[in-house]
């Protein structure tokens, strides 16, 4: 633990040192400066930025998908970010889970992630939940991003978000391919509308069995973060009533339309 504390301290002092060395005068308005490259976008606005600052987002899973998702959402200025993960950092995680470093081995992932995110954006509230996901966690959230790595968890997060009416961005990656989908419960198709039958355990390979390349997870997580920003800032073009199937071996991005099912046990009216 001492080694890790020294490591975090070193990052902090390096950041302070380089900032002091390169820029003597503080910017006139740090808030504008921090978010200037997104504020300058035609699609973005002060209202969009304020919507982000007022939002509470839960990132379920602090691994390969959760790392880019939480990094981009914290950087973009989401006001309250919760990070859920019940695992601890393992050596086999490090090639793809970029919020965790070698000195973090054995540290709970939720805490390891939050420590880095706090360095990234000290102006927001970031909370670690070292626990398994449960449905009560989505209450009061403006958006949930599912970065879990099992079908069981994915269906559980979808059901909880549908029941609570909380928007959700789904994602999954294995090997060199993945999938992303944005869901507005009660308005657009949910994950179970798209995939009604949960695969039986063992029917599909996990990351541990099939492997995954770090950048492939980075692409899918980045797409999830982008969809999350679109939903939170109410931008046009969110990936709703469809999912994006991404094959990074062939560079094929396939957008597949999906319809809401009236008889969907998770989101249907019946």
């Amino acid at each position: 633990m001492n080694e890790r504390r020294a490591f975090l301290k070193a990052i902090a002092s390096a950041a302070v040192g380089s900032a002091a060395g390169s820029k003597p005068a503080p910017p006139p308005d740090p808030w504008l400066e921090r978010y200037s490259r997104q504020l300058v976008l035609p699609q973005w606005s002060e209202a969009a930025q304020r919507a982000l600052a007022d939002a509470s987002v839960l990132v379920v899973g602090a691994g390969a998908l959760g790392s880019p998702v939480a990094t981009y959402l914290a950087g973009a200025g989401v006001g309250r970010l919760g990070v859920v993960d019940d695992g601890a950092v393992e050596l086999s995680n490090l090639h793809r889970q970029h919020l965790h470093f070698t000195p973090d081995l054995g540290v709970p992932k939720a805490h390891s992630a939050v420590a880095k995110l706090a360095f990234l954006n000290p102006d927001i509230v970031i909370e670690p939940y070292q626990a398994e996901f449960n449905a009560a966690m989505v209450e009061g959230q403006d958006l949930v991003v599912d970065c879990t790595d099992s079908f069981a968890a994915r269906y559980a997060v979808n059901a909880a978000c549908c029941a609570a009416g909380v928007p959700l961005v789904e994602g999954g990656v294995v090997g060199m391919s993945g999938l992303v989908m944005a869901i507005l419960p009660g308005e657009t198709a949910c994950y179970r509308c798209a995939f009604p039958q949960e695969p039986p355990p063992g029917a599909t390979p996990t990351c541990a069995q099939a492997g995954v390349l770090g950048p492939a997870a980075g692409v899918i997580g980045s797409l999830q973060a982008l969809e999350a920003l679109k939903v939170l800032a109410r931008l046009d073009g969110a990936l709703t009533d469809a999912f994006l199937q991404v094959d990074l071996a062939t560079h094929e991005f396939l957008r597949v339309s999906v319809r809401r099912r009236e008889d969907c046990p998770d989101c249907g009216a019946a």
Partner: protein
Amino acid sequence: MPVRTLDVSDLTCPMTWVRTKLELERLEVGEALEVRCAEGEALENVPRSAADAGHDVRVDGRIVRIVRR
């Protein structure tokens, strides 16, 4: 109607346009904003960005007058 004014002459790109853009977002369509820019980069970029965003733009010396569209 009083014209809103903004002085970005001590800022550098892209903060000149960020400030201007945020100020324009506070205006109703048809309202005008006069932006004082420094010579050089700002006086080139602010009018161009405003025109690209679809607003009416007129430059008078170092004052960029923008009508929100």
